[in-house]
């Protein structure tokens, strides 16, 4: 087979694949779910089982993220990343978790031990950042 024939076959394969994808797209495709987080804040459970907003934590204290999730899907996933201090352009997170959530109230535990200092937490759906919160941990 010479290179000209090889080129024609490649072109036919691409055209057939293109038509197949266009047909699949027009027939079976659907929009991905839209996800929103509202009124997100850092919180902890009080003695009477109520969730209280907390802005500063002590070392070893349980940290939760509270808020309300709204989506046109019943179940979906969000990602949490924690950065030391302010997030720089190439800074890598010290904590990452992918969490299954449903519509309604959220109480997500941050399963991390944080040394005293300031941290930035981002909640995202892929590349879409849904919420950014600052965490302060005291001695």
């Amino acid at each position, binding site marked *: 087979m010479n290179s000209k024939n090889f080129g024609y076959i490649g072109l036919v394969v691409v055209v057939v694949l293109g038509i197949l994808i266009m047909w699949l797209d027009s027939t079976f495709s659907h929009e991905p779910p839209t996800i929103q987080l509202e009124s997100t804040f850092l919180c902890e459970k009080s003695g009477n089982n109520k969730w209280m907003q907390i802005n500063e934590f002590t070392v070893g204290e349980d940290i939760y993220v509270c808020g309300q999730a709204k989506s046109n899907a019943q179940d979906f996933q969000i990602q949490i990343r924690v950065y030391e201090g302010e997030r720089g352009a190439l800074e890598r997170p010290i904590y990452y978790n992918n969490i299954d959530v449903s519509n309604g109230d959220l109480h997500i535990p941050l*399963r991390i031990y944080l040394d005293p200092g300031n941290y930035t937490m981002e909640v995202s759906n892929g*590349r879409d950042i849904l919420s950014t919160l600052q965490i302060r941990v005291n001695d």
Partner: protein
Amino acid sequence: MIDDGCSLTQYQKEQNAQKLAILEKESQQRKCNSGNYNYCSTVELIAKRHPKPVSGIHVGYSGQAGPGLEGGVYHQWDALVDWKEGNLYVVKTVGTFVYLGSPTGIEGDVYVGTSNVHGIPSDVKDISGFLKGPQFDASASVNADVGLFAGGGKGVNVDLDENGKPVYTSGAGYMYTTESSLEFGGNAVPNLVDVNVQFGLSDAYDVRVIPLWSNK
């Protein structure tokens, strides 16, 4: 055997140290398993959050012009398969670029090729949120050019979050896409051989999901 007491104490010390080391290791393991990746080894990070295989084909067209420094725009469709979950994603992208290389005067082309997405963690089921958003693009191509031209190129897109920062996940690494393309087109200045590099910004503005063998 004579036990002088001293060696037994030493033995106990070593045993206690060993127990402490085991407890410390178990504690680190628990922290790693609960999502605190500071306490995971490199092997554990790769095992937990290794990038999932996402690849497919793309087709697009672009146009460019300019005196000396040339610039242009492109529009591209990607059909990407999440091989783990069994979903096909159709992604539409529009971008602008600066062109450095053989002068073209004015140029238009169509291109087709393969795309390979890196850095999406394997535990994410619906990756549409990772595919949609801004990118920084860089590419290079070589074409045989007699007015009409044909050639090939390689490119990389660094995927950015909505704040314009690269997306990094422990174990999966930075998110980026590599592309290989065949190009066909025409331009106003036939150079016999065109060599160029392009830099630009783009936005994957629309993503649609087609379940293939996924149950969703």
